[in-house]
């Protein structure tokens, strides 16, 4: 069972589809505590990423993730463009041999890229609050020798729990932080899109 180019392509494709499906919902979340563009931003970027992959089929998995990264960086803008772009770029650089353990490590490298670029901390109410628990769950499950499908399911569930866990919190990073107390009780749009990313992995990569 290896995470080859096709598998990664399916993941990216499924993420793009999910983002499209939930576009208005993500924008709605961003209306409440931001500027009403997160769904549009993510959809613009992922649609362009899928188009770029279709136009020039990538040589390998690393190339595939790099194309996604560069497309997010050059087509999205805002906060999510550089952050998701950095995530895919760092994953691409750390992809390894396509084994579940390598995948878990590269996923963690991607998340660390988001930390480095955005300087947010756990609990700040950002995408990290979904991504960090997912990375932890993935590493742990794979380390404990679980099958990839179970490990990814654990990661997706951890992401969703992370998203929900910070919902009551006051945002300390990004645009939502301007609201102060008024940000409490709202789902963070970036955490919501990050859950879609991990869910997409659970749906597609588990079958690899």
């Amino acid at each position, binding site marked *: 069972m290896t995470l080859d180019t096709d598998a990664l392509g399916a993941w990216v494709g499924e993420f793009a589809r999910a983002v499209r499906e939930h576009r208005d919902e993500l924008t709605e979340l961003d209306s409440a505590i931001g500027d009403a563009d997160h769904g549009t931003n993510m959809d613009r970027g992922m649609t362009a990423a899928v188009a770029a992959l279709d136009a020039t089929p990538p040589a390998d998995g690393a190339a595939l993730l790099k194309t996604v990264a560069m497309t997010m960086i050059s087509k999205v803008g805002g906060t*999510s463009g*550089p952050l998701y772009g950095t995530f895919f770029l760092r994953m691409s650089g750390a992809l390894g041999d396509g084994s579940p353990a390598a995948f878990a490590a590269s996923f963690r490298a991607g998340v660390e890229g988001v930390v480095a670029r955005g300087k947010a901390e756990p609990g700040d109410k950002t995408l990290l609050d979904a991504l960090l628990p997912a990375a932890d769950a993935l590493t742990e499950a794979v380390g404990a020798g679980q099958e990839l499908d179970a490990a990814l399911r654990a990661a997706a569930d951890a992401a969703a729990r992370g998203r929900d866990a910070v919902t009551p919190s006051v945002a300390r990073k990004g645009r939502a932080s301007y609201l102060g107390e008024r940000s409490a009780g709202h789902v963070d749009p970036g955490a919501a899109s990050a859950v879609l990313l991990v869910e997409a992995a659970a749906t597609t990569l588990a079958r690899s």
Partner: protein
Amino acid sequence: MKKLINDPADVVDDALRGMAAAHPDLRIDPEHRIVFRGDAPVAGKVGLVSGGGSGHEPLHGGFVGMGMLDAACAGEVFTSPVPDQMVAATQGVDAGAGVLHIVKNYTGDVMNFEMAAELVAAESGTEVVSVVTDDDVAVTDSLYTAGRRGVGVTVLVEKLAGAAAEQGRPLAEVAEVARRVNGQGRSMGMALTSCTVPAAGKPTFDLPADEMELGVGIHGEPGRRRVPLAPAREVAEMLLEPVLADLDFTGGDGVLAFVNGMGGTPLLELYVVYAEVQAVLAKAGVTVARSLVGSYMTSLEMAGCSITLLKVDDELIRLWDAPVRTPALRWGV
């Protein structure tokens, strides 16, 4: 959604086409969505680049021209432009004297400009200095968060640093002017109605008929609190109170007072507000040396206003009065 647009996805490109048609002395790169000064790069001059999400017009494209910006990058509505655009703008205005990036303090803008600066550094010898504006006193606890937002003072930084660059001053000095202006300026805004992001198709927030948002941002981000509607006199007080509390504006050579419309508020009302601002400042012992009243940094069709005060000195007044020739600010030429 009632807007004079075509497809929401085309708003930025369509508006840039309009700008290109209306301002033949600007040069517009439609692919990179950059508004260039027609004669950029200007030999010997530091280049000024700014940019940000669209929907704040005339900011930034309307401030491109002699005495102000050399290039402005237009992002999607309320979304920072991307590094590619900033790199192209930086290269397009660099005449060897270096380039100043004027960046409003929003996570997205800061990250994208940072990535652009890294790319420029990696690819070319162009020296880039960035100045981040963060004048919005509506944002408290700014130490532990994304910090204060860059709002009204950005317009003043672009004018004053632009005038300094036009005098042929070196990059370090131009950046110093920009930083000083940011450090001496404070703003606070409010909204009577929400804006509607074209791609979202409905108002970003709902505001009851008898309430207003205090401390609202320029992206329709909800403010810190909702208060009952109040007369202009009280609105001026509510906006100026935290501004005056944050920095001492008394004494010296006085202030530049800037009443900015959010896009859907007519000039008639801005003058009503300005009358009250003058009255509050007079009572607070603050002298007004210069003023600016108009819609210069908007939030689509949001109704509301912001007030910016900038402590000025002789030098800043001279830079303010210096000739400027852009679509939105023009005098002395």
